[in-house]
C-alpha cells in the first residue's frame, strides 16, 4: 500500500516534469520563430483584429462595471475612517495597476485562448497541420508566431482602453451616485497617478498576452483524440492561461514594486 502511494507520487512527479519540459521546448521554439523571419504579416493583422478589436465589447463592459463597483466599495470602506476623498485615486491606481490587466487578461484568456486551442486542435485532428508541413510551411511560423506576436502587441492596447473605461466606470458612479464634484473627481484621479502605475499594467498586459497565446497554441497544437481531445485542449488552455496570469501577476508586481 505504502509502495503504491510512493509509486503514485513518482508517476505524478515524472508526468509533471515531462509536461514542464514539453511546454519549455514549445515556448523556446515559438519564441525563436516569432523573432526570426519570415513573418506572415497578413496573419498577424488578422490575429490582431481577432484578439483586439473583437474583444473590445467584452473588455469594455467588464472594465466599466469593475471600475463602478470598485468606486462603490472603496467609498463604503473609506467612509469608516472619513477618507471618502481617496475614492478617485484608489480607483485609478487599482484599475491601472491590477484590475485592468488581470480582469482584462482573464476575460481575453477565456475568449481568445479557447478559440486558439479549438482552431489549432481541429487543424491537428483533421491533418491540416500535417498538410502545412507537406506544403513546405513551418506550422510554428505560420500558426503560432502570428498569434504570439499579435497577442503581445494587442493586449497592452486593449488594456489601455480597459483602463480608461474602468476609470470612467468609477467616475460615473462617483459623480452620479456618490455625489462627487465632476472636476474634483477628475483632479483626484490624475493628481496622484504615476506613469509607472500605467506602464506596469501595460507590461503585465504584454506578458499576459504572451501567456494567453502560448497556452492556446500549445494545447491546440498538441491536441489528440478527435472532438473530445479538442474539447479537452480548449478547457486546458483556458485553465492554464488563467492560472499563469495570476501567478505571473504576482511575480511582475514584485518586480516593479517590491521594496
Amino acid at each position, binding site marked *: 500500500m505504502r509502495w503504491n502511494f510512493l509509486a503514485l507520487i513518482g508517476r505524478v512527479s515524472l508526468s509533471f516534469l515531462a509536461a514542464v519540459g514539453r511546454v519549455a521546448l514549445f515556448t523556446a521554439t515559438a519564441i525563436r520563430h516569432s523573432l526570426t523571419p519570415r513573418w506572415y504579416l497578413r496573419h498577424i493583422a488578422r490575429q490582431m483584429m481577432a484578439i483586439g478589436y473583437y474583444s473590445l465589447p467584452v473588455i469594455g463592459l467588464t472594465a466599466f462595471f469593475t471600475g463602478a463597483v470598485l468606486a462603490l466599495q472603496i467609498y463604503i470602506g473609506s467612509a469608516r475612517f472619513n477618507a471618502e476623498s481617496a475614492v478617485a485615486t484608489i480607483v485609478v491606481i487599482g484599475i491601472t495597476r491590477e484590475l485592468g490587466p488581470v480582469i482584462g487578461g482573464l476575460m481575453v484568456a477565456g475568449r481568445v485562448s479557447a478559440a486558439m486551442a479549438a482552431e489549432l486542435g481541429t487543424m491537428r485532428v*483533421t491533418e*491540416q497541420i*500535417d*498538410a502545412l*508541413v507537406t506544403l*513546405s*510551411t513551418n506550422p510554428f511560423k505560420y500558426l503560432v508566431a502570428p498569434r504570439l506576436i499579435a497577442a503581445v502587441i494587442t493586449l497592452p492596447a486593449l488594456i489601455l482602453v480597459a483602463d480608461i473605461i474602468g476609470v470612467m466606470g468609477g467616475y460615473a458612479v462617483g459623480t452620479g451616485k456618490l455625489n462627487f464634484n465632476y472636476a474634483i473627481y477628475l483632479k483626484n484621479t490624475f493628481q496622484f497617478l504615476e506613469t509607472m502605475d500605467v506602464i506596469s499594467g501595460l507590461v503585465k498586459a504584454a506578458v499576459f498576452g504572451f501567456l494567453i497565446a502560448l497556452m492556446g497554441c500549445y494545447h491546440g497544437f498538441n491536441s489528440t483524440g478527435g472532438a473530445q481531445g479538442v474539447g479537452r485542449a480548449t478547457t486546458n488552455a483556458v485553465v492554464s492561461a488563467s492560472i499563469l496570469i495570476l501567478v505571473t501577476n504576482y511575480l511582475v508586481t514584485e518586480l516593479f514594486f517590491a521594496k
Partner: protein
Amino acid sequence: MTEQANNETPMIRLRDVHKRFGPKVVLDGLSLDVPKGQSVVVIGGSGTGKSVMLKCILGLLRPEQGLIEVDGENVLQMNAGEREQVLRKFGMLFQGAALFDSLPVWENVAFGLISAHNMKRSAAREIAIEKLAQVGLAPEVGNLSPAELSGGMQKRVGLARAIATDPEIIFFDEPTTGLDPIMADVINNLIVDSVKNLGATTLSITHDMASARKIADRIAMIYKGRIIWDGPVDQIDNSGNEYVDQFIHGRAEGPITMELRR
C-alpha cells in the same frame, strides 16, 4: 555517378524502417523502393502501418531505426531547412482532403505557390483556377469556403492542391475512401491523368482494390509493419502469396486474422 546508376536510384527508398508507439510496434523493418516515374500503391488492412510509413517519409514522424532516402538523399539526417527544401518536391492528397477551413478554395490550391514558392497572389490565383479546371471544377468554386463543398469536391480540391506546384513526387492517402463508386472512379481517372501529365513518381496507400488496380504500376502489400509482397500490378492475381490472395478477394478466412474481442 553514371547516368545508368542515376536511373537505377529509386526516387524513394526505405530500408529496415522501425517505428513504435509505446509498446505497439507499427513498422517492423519495412523496406520498399519507389522507382522514378512509377506509380506504387501500398495495400493493406487498417492499422498495418500504411499511414505511418507515409508520415515517416514526410518527416511528420521520426522512425527509431532505418534508412529513408528521397532522390538518393537520406532525409533522416537532414536539418529542418534541408527537409523543407526536399518537401518542395512533394505534393500530397490527404484522406480527408485536409483543406484549410480559414482560406477560400483557390487559396488552398495556391497555398504552396504563395507560401513556399513566394509567388505573387494574383499569379498564384490564376494557376489555382487552372488546376481547379484540370480536376473538373469551375472557377467560381475557387471563391467558396471548403465547408461549402461535398466530400467528392473536397477530394478534387485536395488533388488540385497536391498538383499545384507540379511536384516530382505525389502521395495519395486513401484517395477514394468515403466516396461513392462513381466519384471514386472519377478521382482515380483524375489521379492517372494528373500523374501522366506531370510525369511524377507517386506512392499511394489504399485498401480499395479497384483504385489500386487503376492507378498502380506496382503494388506492394504491407502486413504487420513489413512489406510481404511487391510486384507489377498485372501479377497481383498470381502473386502466390496467400496473404495477398486473401486481401484482394476480401475473404474473412485465411492467414490474416482480425483481432476481435468477444
